[in-house]
């Protein structure tokens, strides 16, 4: 699991560059909460603590959650989310290896449903914001909710590209004009696309290290590109390009870091393909037709439910057997 953390570093670096150092605080908070919650639960469950903490699985959950929520959210948000992910979604199901759902995504879904306003209050990328927040300003914002003198919340936040797209499409604008907005970059959201690219880099490292198999990311990205491509070809004025979908929201993080969670995912090669394609499809449908701008978390949770079914029906042919 340590290599997974390592693979997240480029993404985090890009994140800091785009949104400022506030994310580091969130990451530290998440890590500490995760470790404390895990240790407390292991103690309660009378399990050895050290080997389970040292495998970093809790830290991976914490980081994924931290990277998924807005970096300027108040400190307690990530604490609550991480606590829920570790205690409810992981330990109460039996701890490492027994959780049917991806804990980070459960944590995210809980936060999104419980605190929708905070969860959608994303800061504008630094180069877009009218006012640049320093690291200490961000710290202040996270811990006390206080903005520097004379700065309005609206000045530092901005709708995410997916969010913006959704609202503008509702206003019957066309994609070609929407994407002219400053939040859009070349591939995805301005700035965001760099983070996404860095995730891709980290993901490739994981694949090279044989931590993850090619099946899940490939199937996810291919399915997402395919389904968005079909829609795009049918009506490019209403649907964005596949490239935009691949580089927006949590697509890359999902492809390489979220759906590759082995515990809650399928194990058979064929099953991995189906699972990832399912996540991509559901996520795309939520993005386009659902109530939330991004649907990765719900898509993952939904497909987690299907894992036993997928595994049972994708058993590979055993040597010497016909089927």
């Amino acid at each position, binding site marked *: 699991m340590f290599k997974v953390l390592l693979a997240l570093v480029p993404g985090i670096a890009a994140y800091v560059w785009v949104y400022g150092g506030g994310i580091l605080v969130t990451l530290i908070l998440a890590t500490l909460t995760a470790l404390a919650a895990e240790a407390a639960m292991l103690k309660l469950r009378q399990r050895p603590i050290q080997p389970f903490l040292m495998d970093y699985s809790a830290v991976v959950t914490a980081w994924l959650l931290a990277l998924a929520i807005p970096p300027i959210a108040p400190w307690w948000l990530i604490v609550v989310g991480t606590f829920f992910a570790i205690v409810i979604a992981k330990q109460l199901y039996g701890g490492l290896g027994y959780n049917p759902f991806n804990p980070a995504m459960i944590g995210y879904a809980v936060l999104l449903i419980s605190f929708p306003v905070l969860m959608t209050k994303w800061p504008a990328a630094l180069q877009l914001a009218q006012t640049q927040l320093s690291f200490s300003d961000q710290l202040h914002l996270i811990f006390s909710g206080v903005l520097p003198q004379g700065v309005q919340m609206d000045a530092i936040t901005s709708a995410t590209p997916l969010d913006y797209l959704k609202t503008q499409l509702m206003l019957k604008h066309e994609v070609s004009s929407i994407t002219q907005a400053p939040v859009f970059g070349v591939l995805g959201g301005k700035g965001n696309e760099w983070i996404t690219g860095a995730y891709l880099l980290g993901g490739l490292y994981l694949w090279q290290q044989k931590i993850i198999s090619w099946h899940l990311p490939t199937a996810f990205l291919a399915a997402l590109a395919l389904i968005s491509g079909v829609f795009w070809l049918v009506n490019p004025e209403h649907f964005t390009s596949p490239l935009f979908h691949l580089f927006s929201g949590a697509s890359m993080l999902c492809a390489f870091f979220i759906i590759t969670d*082995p515990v809650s995912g399928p194990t*058979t090669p064929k099953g991995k393909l189906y699972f990832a394609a399912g996540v991509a499809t559901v996520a795309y449908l939520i993005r386009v037709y659902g109530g939330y701008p991004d649907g990765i978390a719900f898509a993952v949770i939904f497909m987690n439910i299907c894992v036993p079914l997928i595994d049972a029906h994708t058993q590979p042919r055993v040597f010497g057997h016909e089927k």
Partner: protein
Amino acid sequence: MMNAIVNLASLFKSAKDIFPFHGGVHPPENKAQSTQLPIGQLPIPQKIVLPLRQHVGNIPKIKVQVGDYVLKGQLIAEAEGTVSAAIHASTSGTVSAIEDAIIPHPSGLPDRCITITPDGKDQWIEKAPQDWRNAERKTLVASLRLSGIVGLGGATFPTHIKLRADGKSGVHTLVINAAECEPYITCDDMLMRERADEIVKGISIAQYLLGAEKVIIGIEDNKPEAAKAMEAAVNKVDMGTNMQVKIVPTLYPSGDARRLVHLVLGTEIPYDKRSTEVGLQVFNVATVVALYRYFELGEPSINRIVSMTGNVQAPQNFEVLFGTPMLHLVQAAGGEKANTTHFIMGGPMMGFDLPSADVPITKAANCIIAASPTLFAPPPPAMPCIRCARCADACPVNLQPQELYWFAKSDNFEKANDYKLFDCIECGACSYVCPSDIPLVQYYRYAKSEIIAQDKAKEAADLARERNDFRLARIEREKQERAQKHAERAQAAKNDTATQSPAATTDEAKKAAIAAAIERAKALKAATQDAAQTEPAVKPAQTDDAAKKALIAAAIERAKAQKAAALAAGNAPKNVADAPEPVKKEIAEIEARRQAVGLSEATESVTANNTSNADADKQALIAAAIARAKAQKAAAEAAKQASSETEKD
């Protein structure tokens, strides 16, 4: 469909004609240590302990007694049943004990062993080489049963079974397993380097016995010297043999027979078939050398090459007599180093920890590894399975070990079976790659032995049920037979009276007899009554010898009533013609009883008439013979009554 598998596999023909199998691992080989020295010879040990359980199949039957002097190569236990192998004295000496001792088996349990105290002369029995080229295959294979040769790759399956021509399918290709994929083990490697000629001769014998057109020798590419030696030896023999050395990549477990067949031929042997059913047979190199020695030199299987390696001073391969104490072998390799914790028999992947250091070398012992914490660190505590499926990627059978583990751990054996647990070859590749250090193979072994035990218990229960059902059915049948006999007896009586009635002077007499018969038939209560009353009813009818004999037989049966019965029988005939009066009397009695029971006489008399006299006699005979001992008194009384009636006239 089976061909489809084969064809599919051949689609992926690689340039080198190698057909890789799924998965596999490449652990550190650790083979160089034990190949530095040539194969060594051991001095004759002071004790030879030969366990009877050295092979797959039935325990052989001991043919010697304590105190017997045996020569080297003498048969001391012969194969019992089909799947079994003989055992021979591995040196000359005296049988000093036949008792239970710890055998090299994972259970660590003692089992029957024959102990020989060598006399040091190492004197052979008269060797009987066979001219195999000019002998019939059948006789050769039959004689193999006496050779004690089993698969020396470690499976120890009796070789004569593998060479047996079952007529169903001819073997076209013989695959020689020289892959030796497991780390540490080098006995086949050294054998090929030093005795390639013997191997090739052995292969020729196996090829001849099987009638195989083609021979493929599969060697892993980490044994270049061995491969070179084998190629040279193959090139020396004439071209007609069609032997080919194939180099396969070093990837554990390529030495598994089915994996090797796939590697060299691309054939996937169906899980429920043996290799011979698809025209293939696989032999280990050491096994074919044993064949060569048996047929060309007349030496039965009494020794093998063993790799003594690991934590010993001088790892080396030795030619070891079966039954040699393992520590004798350890000594020969310079003794174990100080931090040795235990010994492993077989390789580190599939071998097992020896329960004791005081065990003999057996036919299965291809390698002994002295283990130390530095060589084999104790496994860290197992973490939960995170379903990473690396085991599935490593599994050469393409199973889903993570699922099997889950089922085995929760004793869900039915599911484990569904996920093809019994296709698992226990190669240990899954345990080797597991990042959570779960001893997966141990779980599979556990589940397998539980399932086998359950199946056995079920078989026993089915057998018990069947036997119990059979017993109950038998008891029921006996009861019915008894009842039927009573009925028959009654009918016989009726017949008698019926046939005799014309001879009788009055209708009433006839009626009386019939009534009596009916009464008896319906009574059925006890044999006593029947037996007793049969007599008087029969008696009036008897005029011929047969009838007399019947009565005599009946009389004899009733031991205590002998005299009375005999008397009655003797007097009976007189009674018939001219004694209506007592009969009338009887009629009255019986009529009364009959009416009490509420039976009509008409129906009975009609059926009674049909049977022939002879039949009736016979039935009477049987009926009488069956009379029981308990009927003795009643019979006596009846006889008396009959005679008294006769006398009255």
